[in-house]
């Protein structure tokens, strides 16, 4: 029998659906048991100028120990009326930084997927945890939520291991 989704992947919450007018510091996930995490932001349309600023950080423990930047250069996005957007747009920021924002996305629905491999972290420094955050978007309502899709479990099993503990 083919392996089920939950036997190969784990999903963890960065932050639940919320008005992103206030800063959303995502929960931390550990890549000790996974080879990759895809950080997903799913948001509703808001007001022009209130573009979400996504920031990735890395730490040595899920308590956020030794937090520092986690840079990335590439991501994928879908923006617009999402029921009409069928394919991803590949985004190359031109250089690796820890932050991403698009100046025209506040006013549209959007999904962002940022793929981080475990080896992208400062492994030699003991960094194995990832956090996605979104700075406060502005003075107008803008709903959004953050999820972590954890892939490539190092120890495949009927119930893949937790990513929210060290």
């Amino acid at each position, binding site marked *: 029998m083919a392996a089920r989704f939950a036997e190969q992947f784990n999903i963890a919450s960065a932050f639940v659906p919320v008005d992103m007018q206030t*800063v*959303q*510091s995502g929960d931390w996930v550990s890549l000790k048991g996974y080879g990759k995490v895809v950080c997903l932001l799913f948001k509703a349309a808001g007001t*022009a*100028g*209130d*573009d979400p*600023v996504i*920031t990735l950080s890395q730490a040595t423990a899920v308590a*956020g120990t030794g*937090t*520092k*930047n986690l840079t990335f250069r590439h991501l994928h996005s879908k923006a617009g009326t999402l029921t009409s957007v069928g394919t991803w747009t590949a985004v190359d920021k031109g250089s690796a*930084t*820890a*932050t991403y*924002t698009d*100046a025209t996305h506040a006013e549209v629905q959007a999904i962002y997927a940022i793929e981080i491999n475990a080896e992208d972290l400062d492994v030699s420094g003991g960094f194995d945890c990832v956090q996605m*955050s*979104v*700075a*406060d978007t*502005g*003075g107008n309502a803008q709903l959004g939520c953050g999820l972590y899709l954890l892939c490539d479990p190092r120890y495949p099993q009927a119930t893949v291991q937790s990513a929210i503990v060290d």
Partner: protein
Amino acid sequence: MPKIRITDVRNGYPAVGTEMDVSDDRAARWCGTGIAALVLESAKAPEPAPEPAPNPEEKKGKK
């Protein structure tokens, strides 16, 4: 669009030193709360050039 530089360590915000173009509203808010400092003010639209004054020589020629 103004450019700001993050100047304060706050969880959930870009790292200190990050420079970014933001809306006027965000620049005012983040700079006002000490998260960031303004690097470059929003570029203002250039004022329209004044209409050229009528050339008196041309008028004379027409007469």
